[in-house]
């Protein structure tokens, strides 16, 4: 098999206050895959995300991205390869205009001039926000801001995009628009979510993170229809939702 884009081997992590969040996570994501990471609150999902680009470094175990280990010396390249879209777009968009914000990452990679403009506009085009390039981020709707946040990561041409709760706080139309954008992208994708129908819609494969370990993984449909598994990890489908009929 080829080198996985994301390769986590028995990753364990405890916060400085002694709270242990991860107890040995093994996870592989291959090129072109779309994986949902499911789990109850406090399962360690966000801690896991922060390991993928070296914001947190594992206490034990290893993380590598396309064969490159996540260690201090490689962080610049790792952060180009792994694009994280955080939950609150107001945290992600901090520059004065959409264009400057999307250009922030590639500028840090040393890209300038016409090439920079081309990449910024092509990323904004992919999320349908090209017409808003010169608007300040705080003048956009929440759904638009989240799509711009996706563009700020796309513009880095990453090998994998990681989304933390992509559908949170979105109204149904914005949620669907984001799904359209994500479906159209030709990238490896990992999303951490509580929105199980969204996971089923966008990700053929799912991983259940519970109490700091990978408790189960497989086809998203199989996981969502395994009642015993779902119940034991505090996962619940929304009322009236039947995965079989989707």
């Amino acid at each position, binding site marked *: 098999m080829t080198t996985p884009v994301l390769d986590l081997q028995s990753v364990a992590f405890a916060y400085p206050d002694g709270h242990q969040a991860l107890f040995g996570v093994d996870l592989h994501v291959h090129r072109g895959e779309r994986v949902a990471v499911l789990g109850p609150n406090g399962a360690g999902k966000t801690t896991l995300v922060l390991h993928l680009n070296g914001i947190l470094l594992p206490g034990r175990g290893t993380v590598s991205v396309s064969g490159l280990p996540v260690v201090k010396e490689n962080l610049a390249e790792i952060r*180009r390869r792994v694009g994280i879209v*955080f939950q*609150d777009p107001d*945290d992600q968009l*901090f520059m004065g205009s959409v264009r400057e914000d999307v250009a922030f990452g590639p500028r*840090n990679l040393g890209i300038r001039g016409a090439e920079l403009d081309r990449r910024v506009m092509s990323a904004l085009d992919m999320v349908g926000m090209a017409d808003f390039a010169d608007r300040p981020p*705080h003048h956009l709707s929440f759904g638009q801001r989240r799509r711009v946040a996706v563009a700020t990561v796309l513009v880095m041409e990453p090998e994998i995009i990681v989304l933390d709760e992509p559908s949170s706080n979105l109204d149904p139309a914005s949620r669907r628009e984001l799904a359209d954008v994500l479906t159209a992208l030709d990238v490896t994708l990992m999303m951490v979510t509580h929105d199980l129908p969204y996971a089923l819609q966008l990700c053929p494969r799912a991983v259940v993170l519970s109490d700091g370990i990978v408790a189960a993984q497989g086809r998203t449909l199989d996981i969502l229809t395994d009642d015993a598994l779902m119940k034991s990890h505090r996962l619940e489908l929304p009322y009236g939702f039947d995965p079989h009929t989707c």
Partner: protein
Amino acid sequence: MGAPHGHRLHFQGHSPVHQAPAHLKIAFLVSFMLVVVATPVPWLAAFAAYAAVLAVLVALSGVPALYLARRLVIETPVLAFAVLLPFIATGPTVDLLGLSLSRPGLVAGGGLVVKATLGVLASLLLAATTEPRDLLAGLERLRVPSQLVQIMGFMVRYLDVVSDELRRMKTARESRGFTARDPRHWPVIGRSAGALFIRSFERGERVHLAMISRGYDGTVRR
């Protein structure tokens, strides 16, 4: 959804004052203020000239005088202090409406009011005719240290986010029957301010994480 457009101090327009380069406006404002502050109080003609210059600029800019006058309220604390001066200063006194007032206090208070009003008015005019973004670019062109300009940029970006948060906290307090009427309610306001500080601090940390996730290493590159 979405915040109001433009900045609360900004008055949309296309006058020559609006279109003048931001760095020139900033340089003019700073020199104007220095000159005003350095002028001795008894030189009344000079102050009249400064006021005339400002009046011409305001007229040129097309910003309504009432618009600026209402925002002059920010000056109130200075005015309060100026009113106190004749009562607390020492030296020869004059009798006015039966009150015995200090003559140097009156002069200093009057000077303070005139200088503060001229300075605040000039600043308001700059704010009314310059977009925050242009203001930052102007500061950068004037070689203000980039770290300072960055901090101001974040302030502009997050002002609305934080004031929204403040408004939501106020709504939540009032929804539970709280209105600040007398000083006994101040501790609640204080705790809200504390909570807002913690929230903003945590947001700062999250923004920093998002920045380093996109390759930030301490310098914003242009």
